[in-house]
């Protein structure tokens, strides 16, 4: 493990703030990002029981504008963006012609001619080029605004109460996966989206990326959340939170060698909307009997922690699959994993073995998400 930053690493506007606060920094997809501040478990628990604050400015923001923006998005993304209303966001993904993943994205509809696609950090350049090229034949303009925004995620059951102190927008009027524009910390026209990557209620806000503004808002959010025990959170907690919620991470549950059915994301893939990049290949997968392997949730029954890349075996000792992501789950207090296994092993309660270093450790298939947030008492 090395915390040494090389000049080639990219930094968010909050980099100095993270370092001042004593965060442990890591290279994440070419970005010098905080992996933890006070400790991964404490940060994870803050988000499950109170509120946590994440700097997710390394995410990319691509805007499509022009009369054929919707057509372009329908061509590039697998979900049906024609169903979006102004002010609504949608989980979706961009696919290669073979039905595997360029990246997963969130599409926001600003207006009939104006959409924002939020993409992942590690795939930013690839995604931008992909969108730019794929949108060429449509009458729309593609702009990369990634460096213009500091993106903060305020997540947890106390996220709304925290952010409400800092904005004039009535946050109770923003439903999950919807957004509004409003003044936040004195900044007018700030995008406030009720989205996140933690399995909790929460918001993502997009503010100007100058260091002074970013620092001021970061500190104001921490102050507003103080009474709820807010903690700044790093990528370590972000990963365990998303894993408990069984949300995909590029390079793990989705990649250019994993198709939509294997990843279990077909509910976000609308073949009936008409042709799009990857749809032909996916139809062929369906016509030839569906995928051969599937992503399943595993709970390790015996002592041992399943980790990314560990092999999955059957009782006979034959390797049948691989762990996409595995970790101790801090809130659930279990060792969990998402793993690709042949469909005949995908049934609930099916027992398999994970090779944890030299030992074969028993695990069973369980429903996902592993964690589902409690329904709000209205």
């Amino acid at each position, binding site marked *: 493990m090395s*915390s040494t930053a090389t000049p080639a690493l990219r930094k968010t506007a909050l980099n100095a703030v993270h370092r001042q606060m004593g965060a442990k920094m890591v290279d994440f997809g070419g970005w010098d990002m905080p992996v933890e501040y006070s400790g991964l478990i404490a940060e994870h628990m803050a988000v499950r029981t109170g509120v946590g604050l994440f700097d997710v400015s390394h995410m990319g923001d691509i805007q499509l504008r022009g009369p054929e923006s919707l057509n372009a998005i329908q061509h590039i993304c697998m979900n049906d963006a024609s169903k979006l209303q102004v002010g609504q966001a949608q989980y979706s993904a961009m696919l290669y012609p073979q039905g595997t993943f360029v990246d997963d994205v969130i599409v926001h509809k600003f207006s009939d001619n104006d959409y924002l696609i939020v993409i992942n950090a590690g795939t930013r350049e690839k995604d931008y080029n992909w969108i730019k090229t794929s949108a060429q034949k449509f009458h729309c303009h593609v702009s990369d605004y990634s460096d213009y925004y500091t993106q903060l995620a305020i997540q947890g059951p106390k996220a709304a109460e925290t952010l409400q102190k800092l904005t004039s927008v009535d946050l109770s009027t923003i439903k999950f996966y919807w957004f509004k524009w409003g003044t936040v910390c004195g900044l007018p026209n700030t995008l406030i989206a009720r989205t996140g990557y933690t399995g909790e209620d929460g918001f993502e806000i997009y503010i100007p990326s100058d260091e002074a503004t970013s620092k001021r808002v970061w500190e104001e959010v921490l102050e507003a959340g103080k009474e709820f025990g807010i903690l700044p959170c790093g990528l370590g907690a972000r990963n365990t939170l998303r894993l408990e919620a069984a949300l995909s991470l590029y390079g793990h549950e989705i990649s250019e060698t994993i198709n939509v059915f294997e990843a279990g994301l077909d509910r976000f893939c609308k073949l009936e909307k008409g042709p799009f990049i990857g749809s032909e290949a996916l139809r062929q997968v369906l016509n030839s009997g569906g995928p051969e392997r599937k992503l399943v949730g595993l709970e390790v029954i015996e002592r041992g922690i399943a980790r990314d890349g560990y092999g999955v075996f059957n009782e006979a000792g034959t390797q049948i699959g691989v762990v996409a992501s595995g970790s101790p789950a801090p809130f659930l207090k279990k060792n969990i994993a998402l793993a690709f296994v042949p469909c005949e092993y995908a049934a609930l309660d099916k027992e398999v073995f994970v090779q944890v270093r030299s030992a074969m450790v028993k695990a069973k298939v369980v429903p996902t998400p592993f964690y589902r947030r409690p329904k709000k008492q209205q």
Partner: protein
Amino acid sequence: MAYPANYRYTREHEWIEVDGKTGKVGITDYAQNSLGDIVFVESPKVGAAVKKGEVFGSVESVKAVSDLYSPVTGTVTEVNEELASAPEKINSDAHASWIMKVELSDPSEVESLLSAEDYGKYIAEETGH
């Protein structure tokens, strides 16, 4: 964090406190800090033979698993049972949280380990400060 002057250290971030022919072995504060929240310690069995520079167990944090390397050759006489149910003690006080006690086959092996001062320099180099 001060590194006790009466301990010796490995480049793999274990410490040993030797008292006569026996030694207590743990991981350093630098190691626990790098690992983050420790959730699991795999200790050797009492009576097991350990060899200098070879793996005798592992510690796992939420993020990662890390092998433990024995600073000395010898026989395990005791393991710290408390760490089975409370592995986080290593995070709160790494230099007091021994993982195993070893009867040394060759106490002179200790001489080749790093002193507290040398270990301090070594980790300063490793972190680039």
